[in-house]
């Protein structure tokens, strides 16, 4: 028996900001969930199961927050699962939920991911002083900056490319009411003049720290037939993992990422992603990861990702728009960031992305990664169901 096709019929986000001091964690997730239910014109009674994700518990200091969020998310009397795969968790949470529908375990599933970073300090949460271990000498961006330098050496990319990505994403964010950063006076010169924090990574090329949540309602064909607005259909979805560190690890283009993308393309019948996919929401916490992931995901040959960026191909009006929403560079509630990528991909194929809508977006990829380029999750969504 083949898999049940999975449709996205409801999407909700909070306005991502530095600190949501007006709501509890329960209030934050509730806001996104209600917006997703409203979009789908469903009620709590229509939901069969809840799948929730967030990044490490130290980010808020509430151990197993899903226990206390069951009533806020209408999960009483229903299965509730929590997923954790570091920064990719928003993506893998959506895929776990989607698999429950695809396997016909449940008809309609609410999936949600969140982070309330203002309640703690993510850098502290990620760098506990473990006895006998040499402390990381470089801070948050210092972990990634050497990999960016390695990419520049390997690809021959000029050092101007990172700023182009940041300038593009921050301009795209101005068209997305939910983005955290709305820098109305952004210019390329300002990005280029921003302080060099971890050379080669500048301040304006890094992501913010945000409070926010994102929710989706996933359903089967029967649910999609009842949906008030056009659904997005999952055409392929996959997760891959690899160790954080191992001899032969390719931090510039991790094998787990390449394999994950190849699996998604195989499921969706994508022969040439550059030709067959219309837009991408990818997880870019530091601007240079756009050209790196363009190669890792097969949109460019090795060493060619930066050429797409430099030529404007990834601009909102380009041939392959990337991060139309403004991306992680413009809003980063860590645990939710992956699901926002997945949800923004779905908004595009539903034609519901508003001012940052791409014309004729029929197939859009949502991508997330996390944990020192260790976990990858991706889905490809389309305007037409998989068997059409």
């Amino acid at each position, binding site marked *: 028996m083949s898999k049940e096709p999975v449709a996205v019929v409801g999407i909700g986000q909070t306005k991502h900001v530095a*600190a949501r001091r007006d709501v509890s964690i329960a209030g934050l997730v509730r806001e996104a969930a209600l917006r997703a239910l409203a979009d789908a014109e469903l009620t709590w009674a229509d939901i069969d199961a809840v799948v929730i994700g967030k990044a490490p518990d130290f980010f808020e200091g509430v151990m197993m927050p899903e226990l206390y969020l069951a*009533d806020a998310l209408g999960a009483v009397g229903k299965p509730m699962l929590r997923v954790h795969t570091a920064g990719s968790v928003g993506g893998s949470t959506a895929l776990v939920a989607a698999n429950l529908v695809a396997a016909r375990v449940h008809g309609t599933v609410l999936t949600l991911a969140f982070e309330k970073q203002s309640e703690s300090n993510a850098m502290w949460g990620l760098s506990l002083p473990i006895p006998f271990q040499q402390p990381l000498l470089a801070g948050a961006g*210092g972990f990634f900056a*050497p990999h*960016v330098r390695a990419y520049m050496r390997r690809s021959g990319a000029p050092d101007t490319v990172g700023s182009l990505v940041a300038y593009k994403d921050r301009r795209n964010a101005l068209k997305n009411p939910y983005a955290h950063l709305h820098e109305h006076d952004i210019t390329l010169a300002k990005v280029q003049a921003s302080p060099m924090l971890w050379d080669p*990574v500048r301040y304006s090329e890094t992501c913010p720290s945000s409070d926010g949540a994102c929710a989706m309602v996933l359903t089967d064909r029967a649910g999609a037939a009842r949906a008030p607005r056009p659904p997005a259909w999952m055409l392929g979805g996959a997760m891959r993992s690899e160790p954080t560190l191992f001899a*032969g690890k390719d931090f510039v283009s991790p094998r787990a990422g390449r394999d994950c993308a190849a699996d998604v393309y195989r499921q969706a019948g994508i022969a040439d992603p550059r030709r067959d996919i219309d837009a991408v929401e990818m997880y870019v916490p530091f601007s240079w990861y756009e050209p790196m992931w363009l190669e890792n995901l097969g949109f460019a040959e090795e060493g060619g990702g930066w050429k797409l960026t430099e030529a404007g191909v990834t601009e909102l009006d380009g041939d392959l728009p990337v991060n139309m929403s403004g991306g992680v560079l413009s809003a980063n509630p860590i645990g939710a960031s992956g699901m926002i990528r997945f949800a923004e991909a779905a908004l595009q194929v539903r034609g519901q992305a508003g001012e940052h809508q791409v014309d004729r977006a029929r197939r859009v990829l949502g991508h997330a990664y996390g944990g020192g380029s260790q976990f990858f999750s991706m889905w490809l969504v389309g305007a037409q169901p998989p068997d059409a």
Partner: protein
Amino acid sequence: MPEVLKAPLAVEFPFTRSLGPVQSAFLTGLRERVVLGVRTVDGRVLVPPVEYDPVTADEIRDLVEVGATGTVTTWAWNHEPRRGQPLATPFAWVLVRLDGADTALLHALDAPGPDGVRTGMRVRVRWAAERTGAITDIACFEPYDGPAEEASAQPAPHTGEFADAVTGIVAPARLDYTYTPGRAQSAYLDALGGRRTVGERCPSCRKVYVPPRGACPTCGVATAERVEVGPRGTVTTFCIVNIKAKNLDIEVPYVYAHIALDGADLALHGRVGGIPYDQVRMGLRVEPVWTSGARFPDHYRPTGEPDADYDTYKELL
């Protein structure tokens, strides 16, 4: 075989909590010696209150004031109070259903011994002398043999509005662990004590891991063959750190580098010094610089050798 190391590890952070409307009213109420509950869709009164109905998932905001007296529904004796618990002397953990409430609140009961505690006994709130808008504004419960206080049988509606409401609290958390790095790391650290860097080779893929973890992450087999590497190595990649990290006493800018020691199959991380930061480059040959008493090299400095060819380290990037 050197002794396996262990050391205490305390994970401690003052987390902040945004309370939202219901918890804000509840904690501000405690500051004002008022205990608030919330009425559910089916009419029950929950104390402590919650934001969403546990049965229907509806948002619930009908606050009511319940009594400061109540009944113990169950209990457990705590022989040895720990740091941060409500009382320093032995006490009972109790669930108390306050008069007017349908659910019970967890707190401490000050009693001389377990013989003085029973399910069904009457208790009342002992308020803390100084109250800030926290659950600790209830210092504890104490035995009570008087009548139920008013406002209890029929809990009265309450707006939940107070002057100068508490909207956020700090919730300090601390976890105490005993950490052990295990056999492989202990042996690695023991060798470092003699300023030798000793990794382990995987019996399957033959890769040399530094620091060793006792198993090969790729092959999933134990590693035991010890291999001395370095002391010299090659800078495979790096960044220049221009912002001061907390708890790090290093002048910026400085170079944070990935260094592949000769004979190792993956790079470790270290600072590069003894050369202007803007002259560090990929392929630079370096060696460790030790300071007395330090567990790890203080930094790495150029050896003066010609730079390594890119092809010799590109697989280690």
